[in-house]
């Protein structure tokens, strides 16, 4: 075997190992719940068909709308340079990292019955808009996912080498030709993946869908799982529903895999682009309007959260600050783990690893957090005190939950780096650690920073499994915030929400900006 082939094998083995570990961490807990239940529970009930249909429809609508709105926004951000652009791109990371209850309160502060929008409409003599219903569910999911979709598409846009745009300029391409020859092929590679990711996120929606959906009409599969656990303590049924959710996820992935196209833009020198095709007044107005509208839609609810909670920040109980420190450590650990796994899987795949490894990396998104946490608990309990493992288990689960996003951000960049420079590196005998250090890491810094930031922020904001493992001094910041809410202390909780927003956003921005240092993005 030649050194180059051996080297590729190393990457493939690392990728397969990481993917196997992830698949085991997803499937073993599910199996543990099934075993504890003594087999699959009662088959689908009368409400389950409706829940599955609602779950699918809202996820499809949310994904389609998020992606459709993200395209003009990403295009505007890709071809405009303006003061505050870098900050805006970072701000795009904020909504997705909000805990769902904070996001709901934030949206209602603007769109709710007593929100700013209805107050403004009333001043104009117009009737109130009703947010509760399918429109509310989709509004919330677009709020969460439009920024994510925009970032994923923007990464793709910036991956078109500047040389292609120069060539286009030399050939005298106008906006229409740039669209046909560069942008549309790009979108064909990026949109299916971004849409599928968002579809999968929305599949496991529960609290947001119920509250903004206005009641049991908005029952999702995740709520049915919750009910099986909490109302009926029917573990078999919970496991069966969770398995159903996983099957939906795999089907969606297969579908996307069959429509996604490989990119074919070739290599470039990573210089930033001065776009020749975007100078027209109409285009400038259009992009400006898109950017303004999106910023208002995303920033106003966030501003409402900050305005409500900022004055309470100083009076927070000490336990909240201790929990914030715990959450920060947890977040960095989860980010490190998610980043390592994603890099291993992406690099293995780029060196010829199996397609299944990438699919395994996306699986965690579709497993009910409730089933995942309960299964892990069942696995851990006979061996160790779950309360003592609350934080490591939470970090591991959060790394798993962030992995699909990290992978979505990283995989295209790793594949592009290998496609563009892999042969040269191989012919120079650059293998193993040197290849990682010299070829991959420098070229995936941006998406890696984004992926790490996203993972850290998710982990900081997730209420998730820490509840199932909880013990003494293990409360995280989201849990502490929820405890304040559960004890009437809504004002203190709003302070904790701001602290959480600052922490999650600070972590995200630090990683994300770190990845973009020295690049123009």
């Amino acid at each position: 075997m030649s050194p180059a082939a051996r080297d590729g094998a190393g990457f493939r083995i690392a990728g397969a190992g990481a993917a196997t570990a992830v698949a085991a961490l997803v499937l073993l807990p599910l199996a543990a719940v099934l075993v504890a239940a003594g087999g699959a529970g009662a088959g689908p009930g009368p409400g389950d068909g409706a829940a599955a249909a609602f779950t699918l429809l809202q996820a499809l609508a949310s994904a389609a709308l998020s992606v459709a709105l993200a395209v003009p926004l990403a295009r505007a951000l890709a071809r405009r340079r303006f003061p505050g652009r870098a900050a805006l791109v970072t701000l795009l990371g904020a909504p997705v990292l909000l805990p769902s209850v904070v996001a709901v309160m934030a949206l209602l502060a603007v769109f709710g019955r007593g929100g700013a929008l209805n107050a403004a409409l009333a001043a104009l003599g117009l009737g109130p808009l009703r947010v509760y219903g399918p429109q509310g569910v989709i509004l919330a999911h677009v709020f969460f996912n439009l920024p994510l979709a925009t970032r994923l598409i923007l990464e793709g846009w910036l991956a078109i080498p500047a040389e292609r745009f120069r060539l286009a300029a030399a050939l005298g391409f106008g906006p229409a030709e740039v669209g046909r020859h560069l942008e549309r092929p790009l979108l064909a590679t990026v949109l299916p993946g971004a849409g599928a990711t968002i579809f999968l996120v929305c599949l496991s929606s529960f609290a947001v869908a119920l509250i903004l959906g206005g009641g049991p009409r908005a029952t999702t599969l995740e709520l049915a799982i919750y009910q099986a656990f909490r109302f009926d303590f029917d573990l078999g049924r919970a496991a069966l529903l969770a398995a159903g959710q996983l099957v939906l996820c795999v089907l969606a992935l297969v579908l996307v895999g069959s429509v996604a196209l490989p990119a074919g833009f070739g290599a470039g020198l990573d210089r930033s682009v001065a776009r020749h095709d975007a100078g027209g007044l109409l285009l400038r107005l259009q992009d400006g309007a898109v950017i303004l509208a999106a910023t208002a839609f995303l920033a106003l609810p966030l501003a409402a959260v900050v305005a409500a909670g900022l004055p309470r920040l100083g009076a927070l109980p000490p336990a909240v600050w201790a929990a914030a420190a715990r959450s920060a450590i947890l977040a960095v650990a989860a980010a490190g783990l998610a980043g390592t796994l994603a890099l291993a899987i992406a690099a293995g795949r780029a060196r010829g690893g199996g397609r299944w490894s990438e699919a395994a990396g996306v699986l965690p998104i579709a497993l009910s957090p409730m089933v995942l946490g309960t299964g892990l608990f069942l696995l851990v309990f006979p061996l160790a005190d779950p309360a003592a493992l609350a934080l490591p288990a939470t970090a591991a689960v959060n790394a798993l939950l962030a992995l699909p996003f990290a992978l979505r951000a990283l995989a295209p960049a790793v594949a592009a780096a290998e496609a563009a420079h892999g042969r040269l590196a191989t012919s120079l005998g650059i293998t193993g650690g040197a290849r990682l250090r010299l070829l991959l890491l420098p070229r995936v810094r941006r998406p890696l920073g984004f992926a790490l930031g996203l993972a850290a922020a998710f982990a900081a904001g997730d209420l998730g499994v820490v509840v199932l493992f909880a013990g003494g001094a293990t409360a995280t910041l989201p849990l502490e915030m929820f405890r304040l809410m559960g004890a009437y202390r809504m004002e203190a909780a709003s302070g904790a929400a701001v602290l959480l927003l600052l922490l999650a956003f600070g972590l995200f921005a630090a990683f994300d900006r770190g990845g973009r240092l020295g690049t123009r993005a």
Partner: protein
Amino acid sequence: MGRAALALGMLAAGLAALPAAAAAETPAAPPALTVYSYDSFVAEWGPGPAIRAGFEARCGCTVRMLGMGDGAALLARLRLEGARSPADVVIGLDTNLSAAAAATGLFAPHGVAAPLDLPVAWDDPLFLPYDWGLLAFVHDRARVTAPPASFAELAASSLSIIIEDPRSSSPGLGLLLWVKAAYGEKAGEMWQRLAPRILTVTPGWSEAYGLFLAGEADMVLSYSTSPAYHRIAEGDDTRDWARFAEGHLMQVELAARLAAAPNPDLASAFLAYLVSPEAQAVIPTTNWMYPAVMPAAGLPAGFGDPPPAARAIFLPPGEARALRDAALAEWLAALAR
């Protein structure tokens, strides 16, 4: 070389000190009682810390209090752990859960014979009440000037309400049983009449109450003791609860000893302490419920003394469990339209 020798010496000294420290601790190590409860009980602003300190002062033991979600999460955790659970005592089940809890066989008789001040006679050998409350719709007096006096009036009004989902929340399940207890065969019909009044349904109490305080709805399903929190902790007298002619479902919060408790005697002593005047005096202004044993000084000012015991509808645990599934089906049918 010298530095390495120093480091080795320190390491050796440290290793030598380890067993010595362990030995010094072992004979004095007091027994540790493990208490499972829900999150808001163990929080630093809940009743947990004071009750733990009070019991530790008299038991010569240490108390480890673990908070896990709410009452239903607590029971689920105990069922997952089964007989291997390290818990001695559980605090935070309620009468909607206790029939299912009793059927697990995980609990042992509490053996506490303290006289209780409940609106109903209590003789359950397994579950010991430590506080109780009435479910009620809470409103802002300035916004709802003429609060409805019954479910029928609420249904006929133009008020908006927020309720909790019975599938994921204990007060939500309570409301289901409340309507069922008050309307029996006609409960489904009442839900159809109430449906237009329901602004939305939340997974838990916290989201519902948060939305209510943010001004999203006129009323929220909570407890008759909720206004006391605003009065006492915030000096805000603008909230009140609507008195319903049908009566109000009584939620009794329960503690129990695990059959497999590692420290059964300490567990019994803890339960006896939980209903002692000292511990009960902590309950009203930390858990915001009526105490199971009325303190000699009565309820704190702001609570409304005496508790509205005459309005209580008590649904025995067995009956609550029997009604549950049919009531849920009616609720879903009425609201899913």
